[in-house]
């Protein structure tokens, strides 16, 4: 056969060989069908462990109550009892042992904007937002921090 036929043939076979052979080395051993079928479950098994190892930042109310008894007592039973401590105080992460990557140490957000997330008056009378006790931002004690007058742990008590 002529060279103009054979040379491209060998070249293409070599390329296919390099791709298949290279794949043997480069694709991790744990790559395969681990889920329900090839379409949805073809993946690298180690990826599951990578995600499991992702650091937890929000530790939840239970991790706060042990040390911060006074605030827990004040908060329990109040209308704010359903709010997670970390929503205002920031994620605990490794607190009190240290600070995780990408997270500032526990810092209290006392800003007016935080309270207005729920308590800004919008006039939505038909929805549950309308049922929230709310103030008109432009009329009620402008630019002052709410916690000066209202106790955030238990709004029914004075600050």
């Amino acid at each position: 056969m002529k060279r103009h036929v054979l040379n491209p043939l060998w070249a293409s076979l070599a390329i296919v060989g390099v791709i298949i052979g290279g794949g043997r080395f480069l694709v991790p051993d744990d790559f395969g069908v681990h889920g329900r079928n090839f379409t949805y479950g073809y993946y690298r098994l180690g990826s599951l462990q990578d995600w499991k190892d992702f650091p937890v930042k929000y530790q939840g109310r239970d991790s706060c109550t042990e040390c911060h008894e006074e605030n827990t007592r004040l908060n329990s039973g109040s209308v704010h009892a359903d709010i997670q401590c970390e929503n205002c105080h920031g994620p605990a992460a490794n607190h009190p042992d240290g600070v995780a990557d990408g997270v500032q140490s526990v810092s209290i957000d006392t800003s007016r904007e935080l309270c207005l997330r729920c308590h800004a008056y919008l006039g939505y009378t038909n929805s549950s937002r309308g049922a929230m006790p709310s103030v008109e931002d432009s009329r009620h004690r402008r630019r002052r921090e709410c916690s000066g007058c209202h106790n955030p742990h238990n709004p029914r008590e004075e600050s």
Partner: protein
Amino acid sequence: MTCSRRDFLKEAAGTAAASALPLSAFVLLSPEEARAAVADSKARYAFLIDTNKCIGCGLCVKACKIENEVPYDAPVTRNWVERYIITKDGKVHIDSPMGGRDGFLDNNMYGEEIDPEDIAKTFFVPKGCNHCDNPPCVQVCPVGATYQTNEGVVLIDRDWCMGCAYCIMACPFGARFFHPVHKVADKCTFCYHRIKKGLLPACVQACAFGARRIANLKDLDDPATKVIMTERVAVLKDLYGTKPHAFYLGLDHDVR
């Protein structure tokens, strides 16, 4: 035919060994082991979202961004809250500034001030990845970098994703985005690192109103599963056939 004692013993031993071999190839599995072998699991996670309870505080978005190290001020987010205002003239106004990360403090929507007097109805819809049973984002991945776990959670392998963004275009819900730091596709992981430790996802934990909940559909005693089984729930974009697993209570027909 002659048969010496030596030959007889040899043959007999060989036959015994040969018949024992196939038996040892069978292993008796307990039901749990059998279930694990066919890649079934005890959990199928789903979201249960009650739009009647959401007041649009956006604390779920804030918690998600911090928990999952999504760049806080970049215009990308794994979950978001949409505000719908239907005015009395029948117009539907929808917005979600920064995904609702800072809540909704006024009635300014895209520069238009909406008078509370004109409002017919309004509601908030928390959204995110629906962890579909037939995820189109997984089907289109050319390299096997995104997949569905046995618990129904759709995840992305950050080491294997090459950032081609096919999946971002394939998702009918807009739940995927390009991660500006890792340069790969990114989306809600159902807080896989948290649910595997028995914690709630960050958005569910942060919600003070119970608007976002999770259900394990394989646990029929799960209170959220009972709600999905017995009450009237809807999913987003049912016609796409992706079988979304975020179930909504109180979904309006204007929600898209």
